[in-house]
């Protein structure tokens, strides 16, 4: 019973806390589970997925978009299309798609079939990081598009098992938003199976708080 309550609390916190833009590495190792909770003030998302192989993951995705007043819930599939491994770097290209339902806030009767497709790419060394993601939504009652990119640097190189720290800068572009382009400096902490990101967007005066755990 306690574990159910704990899971419920985790889901509730997740829905209150999450942003789709920062979903780097949407696929885990074979047999691995991932919980991603993200929030940037415009949107809160929760993505829980399972990876049967290192190239695929499938799970549930829920997004409450505070900026445009809608809620989406569906099943999301992620595919690692291509990975480039070199002695000192790794780069990835991912495809994402989700299908489910969406409804505008305060109008539960107006539920529509909805979905989105997206691509994301990242490149990482032990010192440098860069990523890009683009998504297009069809929510039945409206359509939405967004893209974001990140660059990051690790101020020190940690070994396996150490606390890893990254300083990052994220740029978001959402043509339909009140502030179409925003810049968010953030700090990423990565330790053991936990990843925590804290950032702040001056243009919108919003806090970013992301949490990822893999097990």
């Amino acid at each position, binding site marked *: 019973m306690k574990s159910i309550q704990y899971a419920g609390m985790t889901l509730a916190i997740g829905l209150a806390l999450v942003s789709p833009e920062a979903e780097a*590495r949407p696929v*885990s*190792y*074979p*047999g*691995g589970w991932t919980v991603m909770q993200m929030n940037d003030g415009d949107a809160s998302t929760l993505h829980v997925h399972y990876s049967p*192989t*290192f*190239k695929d993951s499938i799970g549930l995705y829920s997004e409450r978009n505070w900026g445009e007043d809608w809620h989406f819930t569906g099943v999301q599939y992620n595919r*690692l299309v291509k*990975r*480039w*491994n*070199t*002695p*000192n*770097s*790794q780069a990835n290209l991912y495809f994402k798609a989700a299908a489910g339902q969406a409804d505008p806030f305060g109008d539960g009767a107006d539920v529509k079939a909805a979905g989105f497709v997206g691509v994301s790419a990242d490149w*990482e*060394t*032990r010192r440098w990081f860069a990523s890009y993601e683009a998504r297009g939504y069809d929510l039945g009652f409206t359509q939405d598009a967004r893209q974001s990119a990140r660059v990051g640097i690790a101020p020190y190189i*940690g*070994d*396996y*098992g*150490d606390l*890893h720290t990254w300083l990052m800068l994220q740029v978001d572009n959402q043509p339909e938003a009140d502030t179409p382009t925003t810049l968010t400096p953030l700090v990423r902490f*990565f330790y053991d*199976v936990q990843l925590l990101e804290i950032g702040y967007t001056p243009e919108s005066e919003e806090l970013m708080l992301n949490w990822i755990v*893999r097990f």
Partner: protein
Amino acid sequence: MRILLTALAATTIAVASPAAIAQDTTTTETSIAAQTMVTAKVNGMVCDFCARAVTKVFGKEDAVENVHVDLDNGEIHVTLKSGAELSDERVESLVKKSGYDLVSIEREAA
């Protein structure tokens, strides 16, 4: 008679003990020699999460006793259980399953 028995017992101990010790030593040496460490050099292993994927995948193998990842050199050090074997083809398959590319494999006694 008592002196004779004592002398016989002492002689037996003196002769038998080194043999017994030698036998134990031999057994231990055989056990150590049977353990192998496989070092796989791979491309693409640049982060803690990459290392975790490798330890999870290799750790599920029955033949594997311990996995250590050296991110600085891009190496996976796999200690096999005594007498266990892990073929090069299997190592390559596990590296690929983890999401990385195998460069080379070296083996040495652990």
